[in-house]
């Protein structure tokens, strides 16, 4: 992360962040998604988070699969490179990209169909590898781009606009991610800007896989009475797990939470996530309580939101590979083509 970038003197009257960039530097092309689509709100929070953290957009890569949600990377951080890949396969493209240049900050946007159906295999392996990437599922419980079919995160008993009832249980991507080894797992709601932004900022400061499932109603196909991922339903059944406040080390914010009600987690770059516990004994660093909370809220038909699980010091995939610090992609020939002596030695072994 470009936290060391020098602060440029602000032009008078202009709003800029700590690396001297205006908010517009974090915007992308104009959205082509439906007005009111939850995905747009998430895009706005992504823009806010990158801006507020003062991350250099040219040091970011944006990845996605296919779906309405996967179009989102085009709508933020115009000066970042983006790769809109194939349906369900963003994790593998992201893996190759992140490994090839460990210096870049990666953000991946997926949908619940893109992740939970066609891409579940790659999702599983990405989580298992703890690849350093912020992985966002824009979760509307349906396939938006193909016009409203059920996705694997649709809740049991929810209905399509046509009245068809879903009789299969949903996949809980948060529970799955925790089980598989992701080291930062959160859930939020596109309609809760404060919480979502705090989670995104915390995720961007985490080293390892940050998986965020953001419930994001599809206003066109899945925002009706029978849907459990509609605005109305989620607003009513959202159970904030803990109040999240992200404190980057370069911002001097004092947190006004009463002692005894906050849980502070220090992140790799010195930033801290402060979680206001609603539940007395909730431990975001304890896998068992994380899973329990998910099951209990699920049983009540509620969504636990907030940072559900963090393992701050877990070794990430890139570190495991034991590579040189320089990006593989920019190694010169002198470092990648062994000398003649090496070839001679190899040839000798075949004589």
């Amino acid at each position, binding site marked *: 992360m470009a936290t060391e970038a020098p602060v440029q003197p602000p032009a008078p009257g202009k709003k800029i962040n700590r690396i001297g960039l205006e908010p517009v530097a974090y915007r992308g*092309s104009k959205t082509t998604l439906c007005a009111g689509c939850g995905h747009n709100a998430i895009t706005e929070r992504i823009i806010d988070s990158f801006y507020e953290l003062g991350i250099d957009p*040219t*040091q970011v*890569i944006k*990845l996605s699969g*296919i779906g309405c949600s996967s179009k989102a*990377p*085009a709508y933020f951080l*115009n*000066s*970042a*490179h*983006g*790769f*809109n*890949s*194939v349906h369900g*396969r963003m*994790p*593998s*493209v*992201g*893996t*190759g*990209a*992140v*490994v*090839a*240049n460990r*210096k*870049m900050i990666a953000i991946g946007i997926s949908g619940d169909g893109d992740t939970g159906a066609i891409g579940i*295999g*790659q999702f*599983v*392996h990405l989580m298992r590898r703890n690849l350093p990437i912020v992985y966002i599922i824009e979760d509307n419980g349906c396939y938006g781009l193909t016009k409203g079919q059920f996705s694997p995160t649709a809740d049991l008993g929810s209905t399509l606009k046509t009245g068809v009832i879903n009789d299969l249980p949903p996949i809980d991507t948060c529970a799955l991610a925790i089980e598989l080894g992701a080291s930062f797992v959160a859930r939020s709601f596109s309609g809760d800007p404060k919480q979502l932004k705090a989670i995104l900022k915390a995720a961007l400061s985490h080293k390892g896989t940050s998986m965020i499932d953001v419930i994001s109603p599809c206003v066109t196909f899945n925002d009706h009475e029978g849907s459990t991922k509609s605005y109305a339903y989620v607003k009513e059944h959202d159970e904030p797990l803990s109040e999240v406040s992200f404190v980057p080390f370069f911002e001097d914010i004092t947190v006004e939470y009463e002692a005894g009600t906050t849980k502070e987690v220090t992140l790799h770059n010195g930033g801290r996530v402060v979680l206001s516990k609603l539940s007395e004994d909730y431990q975001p660093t304890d896998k068992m309580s994380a899973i329990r909370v998910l099951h209990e809220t699920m049983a009540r038909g509620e969504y636990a939101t907030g940072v559900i699980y963090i393992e701050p010091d877990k070794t990430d995939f890139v570190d495991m*590979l*034991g*590579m*040189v*610090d320089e*990006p*593989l*992609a*920019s*190694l010169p*020939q002198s*470092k*990648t*083509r*062994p000398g*003649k002596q*090496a*070839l001679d030695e*190899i*040839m000798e072994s*075949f*004589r």
Partner: protein
Amino acid sequence: MSVADAVQEAPTKSRTERIVNDFAIQVATVNGSGSQTANLVLLRSIFQMGVPVSGKNMFPSNIAGLPTWYTIRASAKGYISRKKEVDFLVAMNVETAKEDVLTLPPGAAALYDEPLKLNELRNDVVFYPVPFDKLINPITTDAKLRRLVRNMIYDGVLSKLLSIDMGQMEKALRKQMGKKEKAIALNMGALKAGYDYAEANLPKLDPFVVEPMNKTDGLILIEGNAAAAIGCMMAGVTFVGWYPITPSSSLCESLIDYLKKYRRDPETGKATYAVIQAEDEIAALGMVLGAGWMGARSMTSTAGPGLSLMGEFTGLGYYVEVPAVIFDVQRVGPSTGLPTRTAQQDILSAAVLSHGDTKHPLLLPASVNECYTMAMDAFDLAERLQTPIFVMTDLDLGMNTWMSPTFEYPTKPLDRGKRLDAAKLKELENDWGRYRDVDGDGIAYRTVPGDGMPSYFARGSGHNEKAQYSERADDYANNLDRLARKFDTARTLVPKPEIEVVRGAKIGVIGYGTTHWAIVESRDELRNESKIETSYLRLRAYPFTKEVFDFINTHDRVYLIEQNRDAQMLSLLKMECNVEQFAKLRSILHYVGLPIDGRSVTEELVKQERGQ
């Protein structure tokens, strides 16, 4: 039955001539019985005596207990394709022994495990019974070791019968075993026991002998997959994503070994590469494209089933224009097919892999040396053309042992292709388009994340020159036409065919890959036996270069010889031929799961010529 009886039944008069350095030995065993060491020692000993050899393993898709045949061919003339007839059988497998003996040509010889009583099967073959169990008993009491070194006994017997120098056998054994002195001693014991038994009990009754020559001086013995791995390392590969599949696994596995040894940063000891075993071939290619998009030299290797899975991503790589190197070590399909047998059956599917209008350059190595050089070509072409490049080898080349001159150290620097830099950007007056053809060769300038140059949005959906989303008719068609132009540029960059024009020859032969070696032999047979002169063109890449069409134009009939059922390369060629060229094309096909042999080519070509 005593040894003497067995010997008496053999046809002592049938072949009295000596056949020197021109025969094939076939060892029939069950897989998992540890015969590979004995076979490689045999191969290497003959090689060390200066006699050209080739070794071909016909093994089952199974870990232990099914029939395996290993064929070693010695050929003074240097023919190294498979020889159709077996001259000397070593029958160690109870299950197949009978059929193995019955299919021998008259005058052949068979060494067998005495209790199998194979000598009763026919009387036009020389039989050499060997009591393996009796001979192995004194060597070790350990049952497991007995099983492992038992096969060395036939090497000892053959050493005596075929006059293969025992000193060379020992040298080959040491080469094979490394520094494991105890294992060497055990194996030497078995080798010696076989030799002594033959000397005392088996008078020479067959005509086959090995005599020293000097035709292997300076050569090495190596498998194509290892050769390709060395090429990849020398090509400066930095990213490998792969998923195990026979017969390609050993390519990435040898590469991993070489990288570990030779590609550590001298200062930090850290790796200058990353290898990831992916969850499947879809992910393998996805990773390769992700890394290639970032600017890494990136590759994968696979075989038919994996190639099928890579379809969607290959199309993405083509359309987004990301460099990638894909080795396809071809095996027999369709489906799981005969996964441990060789074929050239993925040509058509690789050439147009994925949906929509796609086509991809294919490199076609015929030798282990080309596995090495074309690996380097592939990385350069991938970055120059900004597209996936396929290297089409096959099981025969990849997994069998081939003679080769030592590989030459590359003198050409790596070609990293067209990358936008500050100077170029200025030249373009700051108006850069990721997919704009400024040079007229269809290849645009690319940037990679983190290089400080302008960014672009890589997408598989329709895009314009500036990489912006577009569904406009002209944007789409212009882009597709530019990609076609790029493919025409590829035509000028891929390795040119190797051509031998024989003056006056009306017949042209076209081949590629391992089929080459059968063609070499067949052309001699056609000339010597049928007075048929042929010119020859060996394809080394797709797209076809101009030389291919010139070759067709200058011959009356052109036979394209390949190892698949549907004449796949011929079909690709026909797509680009005019009517006159089309009318000249014939096809010779071989698809039985065994490497093609010269004799089969000769017979089919003569037959088609007679029907002329």
